[in-house]
């Protein structure tokens, strides 16, 4: 069983790296790009015998306490069996 965790900056937080990426992408000739936001992606392998609920609880806990800083970031957890 795997947990996929996406960590993104809160919408209210400026993302200068995303802006720099957007600028580079535009230099490549891609147009009509309105915004780029950078985030982080984590894949956590969990014990196959865990129930989906327990796996989700564990991953939520890890995301909240370690992977994301709740002052500036949001997170989303997906469980894949």
């Amino acid at each position, binding site marked *: 069983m795997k947990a996929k965790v996406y960590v993104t900056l809160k919408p*209210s*937080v*400026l993302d*200068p*790296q995303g802006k*720099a990426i957007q600028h580079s992408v535009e230099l490549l000739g891609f147009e009509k790009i309105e915004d780029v936001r950078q985030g982080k992606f984590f894949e956590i392998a969990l014990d196959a015998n865990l129930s989906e609920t327990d796996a989700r609880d564990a991953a939520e806990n890890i995301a909240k306490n*370690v*992977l994301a*800083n709740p*002052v*500036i970031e949001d997170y989303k957890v997906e469980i894949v069996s």
Partner: protein
Amino acid sequence: MKFGVIVFPGSNCDHDAYHVVSKHVGQPVDFIWHKQTDLSDYDAVIVPGGFSYGDYLRAGALAKFSPVMNAVKDFAARGNYVFGVCNGFQILCEAGLLPGALMRNSNLHFICQHVNIRVENGAMPYTSELEAGEVLSIPIAHAEGNYFCDDQTLAELENNNQIIFRYCDENGEIVDRANPNGSRSNIAGISNKEGNVLGMMPHPERACEELLGSNDGRDIFRSLTKAIAEK
């Protein structure tokens, strides 16, 4: 009186802090390896700059799980002095000892230069030897020094006089062009509500000798020493 300087894997300003305390403050000081959990010998603990855990995940994010950090939290909760500089400030924010977070500099560069900071609160344990409004020249060296907090936290910091230093120009004016990293409200250093925990991005331990371009950092360490002596 005894100071401790915490050493994480990747700390690199620990020796500077040790040097300043032993040579310029003239007080006993120990290095404290991050696995130590007893701080009862100390009156103040410095969380130094550097790249603890290689800045993996986020600057300071992994150091908060080091065994010493629970001891630092207890130490601070008992009213003892905890002083975080640069990576130390990042760690104290990550550990919840100070509000807010330090993000990537708005211009994305690692910035290493002397900056001017204005003393906003000259009547707390780390600034008693300074005057409010005084301008100090202290170097910064960071890529993640862009202080962020929400509006409510900012209002609380202001109302409680917890903003201790702000980036300013040479005349002490708080202006955008003097803000090196995009920090909210030009914040360079804040304290907790009680005033015993201070975090700042500029490095006062690198500004204690004329030879290094400035000795403006000394009065911060002198203030702290006085506060410990009077406690």
